[in-house]
């Protein structure tokens, strides 16, 4: 069934104009409905994520379901405060006067989601849009079809479908959606499609938010608690959707002197996490589809890179699985060091002194996240002051987006 996208937008605009979505009661009811939906259908959500990504139940619950519920709960707790006008100071130049800043919804929002955290990255922006009183169209990623279908079914059942709609589909449907006139577009995905979204939005002067990715570096200093650090690196890499996470540690930078210690620690902890046959481990997500599998094997099989594998490298094409793979000192101009990896390959780049790692980071585009493991306060200050990234986390990875609600 082909959805008439223009009709969907017209309907949503009419709902929005009626003022229904602006009331506190409506917003509250929708947020509560999302929580109920996540609770009532937890099993089905976990199954869909297993089907799409072979995502372990733990990851599905912790990274996706509980995060969505947390977002809803925070919004419910703060909604009245967020909605209330903010008094603004007035100065003598406009005396006498009073002023306030009043929050109002934008109107009808298009949210284009992605495949790696298909539940979370679809609903987290929806929570925000609804809390702000907007009507929403969600386009889940077709690369995670089970979750896309489930979202369509569940949101249809639990949400006010005159104001919240799901449009499933691939490139043709997305193109049709992008031709419409939205009050804002929220896109999560890659830079290539991000450009297409921006260009389409330009025609209607639509403001856009892009959540992309990048090569998030991890700088590992010496004199740290290596056991804890490696567990946290593994946690952010392989235990986060097998490295298919926008804020996953992409590559590591450490000193030449420390590299072998770090590699040994990683290998040891990896075995504790996934056993000695990681391709069979149920605790590791698979690669999402054969296109990404081929992309990753191409990065690994590159003749300049293949010889640098120090651990892992096993592949299972039938089941779309790649073992946790560590590489040491791949050439700076290899593809694996110039594209976001988004998979279970971890290159380690070595430098003479740990301070040189900042130059390695600066030679590349600003990443979504940057990590540092150190006990050296001076290095921490230099890092925070000179590394520009979406967000920084010191002595841990990914936690700053998954667990801390204020950031």
């Amino acid at each position, binding site marked *: 069934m082909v959805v008439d996208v223009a009709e969907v937008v017209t309907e949503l605009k009419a709902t929005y*104009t009626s003022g229904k979505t602006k009331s506190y009661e409506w917003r509250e009811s929708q947020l509560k409905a999302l929580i109920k939906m996540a609770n009532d259908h937890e099993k089905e959500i976990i199954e869909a994520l297993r089907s799409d990504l072979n995502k*372990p*139940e*733990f990851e599905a*619950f*912790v990274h996706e379901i*509980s995060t969505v519920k*947390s977002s809803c709960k925070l919004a419910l707790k703060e909604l009245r405060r967020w909605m209330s006008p903010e008094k*603004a*100071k*007035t*100065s003598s*130049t*406009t005396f006498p*006067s009073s*002023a306030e800043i*009043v929050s109002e919804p*934008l*109107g009808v929002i298009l949210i284009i989601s992605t495949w790696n955290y298909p539940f979370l990255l679809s609903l987290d922006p929806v929570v925000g849009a609804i809390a702000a009183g907007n009507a929403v169209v969600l386009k889940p990623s077709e690369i995670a079809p089970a979750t896309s279908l489930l979202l369509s079914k569940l949101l249809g059942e639990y949400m006010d479908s005159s104001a919240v709609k799901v449009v499933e589909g691939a490139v043709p449907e997305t193109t049709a959606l992008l031709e419409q006139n939205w*009050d804002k577009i929220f896109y999560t995905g890659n830079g290539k499609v*991000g*450009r297409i979204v*921006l*260009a389409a939005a*330009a*025609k209607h*002067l639509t*403001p856009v938010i*892009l959540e992309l990715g990048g090569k998030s570096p991890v700088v590992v200093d010496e004199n740290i608690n290596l056991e*804890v*650090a490696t*567990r*946290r690196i*593994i946690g952010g890499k392989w*235990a986060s959707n097998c490295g298919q996470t926008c804020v996953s540690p992409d590559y590591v930078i450490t000193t030449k002197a420390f590299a072998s210690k770090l590699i040994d620690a990683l290998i040891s902890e990896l075995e*504790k*996490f*996934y*056993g000695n046959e990681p391709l069979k*481990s149920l*605790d*590791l997500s698979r690669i999402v589809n054969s296109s990404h599998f081929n992309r990753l094997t191409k990065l690994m099989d590159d003749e300049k890179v293949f010889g640098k594998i120090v651990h892992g490298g096993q592949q299972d094409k039938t089941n779309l699985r790649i073992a946790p793979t560590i590489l040491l000192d791949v050439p700076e101009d290899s593809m694996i060091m110039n594209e976001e990896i988004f998979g279970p390959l971890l290159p380690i780049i070595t430098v003479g002194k740990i301070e040189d790692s900042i130059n390695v980071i600066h030679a590349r585009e600003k990443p979504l996240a940057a990590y540092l493991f150190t*006990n050296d306060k001076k290095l*921490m200050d230099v890092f*925070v002051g000179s590394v*520009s990234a*979406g*967000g*920084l*986390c*010191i*002595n*841990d990875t990914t*936690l*700053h987006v998954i*667990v*801390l*609600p*204020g*950031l």
Partner: protein
Amino acid sequence: MNYLLSWIFQADLPVAAFPSRAELVPEPLGVILVISCWNFPFGVSLEPLIGAIAAGNTVVLKPSELAPASSSVLANTIHTYLDNKAIKVIQGGPSIGEKLLQQKWDKIFFTGSAKVARIVMTAAAINLTPVAVELGGKCPAIVDSLSSSWDKEIATKRILAAKFGTCAGQACIAIDYILVEKKFSTTLVKLLKAYILSMFGEIPKESVGRIINKNHCSRLRKLLDEPSVKATIVHGGSYDEDALFMEPTLLVDPPLKSEIMTEEIFGPLLPIITVEKIEDSIEFIKSRPRALAIYAFTNNETLKKKLASETSSGSVIFNDAIIQYIADSLPFGGVGESGFGRYHGKFSFDMFTHEKPVARRSFLTDFWFRYPPWNDQKLQIFKSAYRFNYFEIILIILGLKKS
């Protein structure tokens, strides 16, 4: 026990995040391109520049070539007074603009027309450059039936200053048109005529700003030349294209489909649209694209509330106009067709800043249930932690509670 644990674990942070500390660190974006416009060539060039500099960025300013004298003065003074290794002015027209847009910027700040904004956004898309666009729109002024003569005088003066006294109406927040109740319209027109005379004199050519150039002058003339529009002129209507002058002109109820009522006027022509009841003006405004500002001259608190809650615009001002521009504590910017992005005061700083979250963790405590291999026990602990049920966690750890 729960109380003690919640005190230790800081109830707001889920247990897996303990202990940690987080902050938002403001940092500059990098190199900013500011594209300015011709009607307030100094103000609109320097205001974003101030924000970009305060936020620690380097800046290229492209002033509008339609205001060449200002563009030249800006270039000379900025290069003399500011650090010209970090702040540059590049003068020129569309071809320079095009070349600038092909470069990679960390943000582009554009003030101008919707048509050019689309070009800027399309160019920015290629490099995923974030953009802010300050546009305009048809800013309406609702004029309620004011009873006191003091109120009537003040309102009239403020309206006229916000139209003819602000760059001859060539301002994004100038009053574009008026909405008034039929029964008050004659009074209003009389007042407007009287105060146009007292404010701009017998020879307004000497007191009203010029139209920027011949193109815009003939654009404005064309708005008036439509016969069905010309017939509604009640004051003014004369012009001198060579002198780039248009007389302050009032019209009553020009056809709503005419260009003067569908395009942003950006000139000294003031249509007055009459409605049956003043509340009808709200529906009128709602059915049109969102403007940069909505003005209402009224003492009716109910009307004010209805207007603010039912319409959407960059801002809403009661009983004055233009004044929001100098209120630094209020963000200045549009919504919908009037643009996006906001500045002035601290909002300028924020516009050119990346607020970077920095989370800091300690090695001291590490919770084993964060890591694979996953099992039911770990999942249970996490579920309990998620519910902040720390007592349950202890039971699970001690083996006293099974999943």
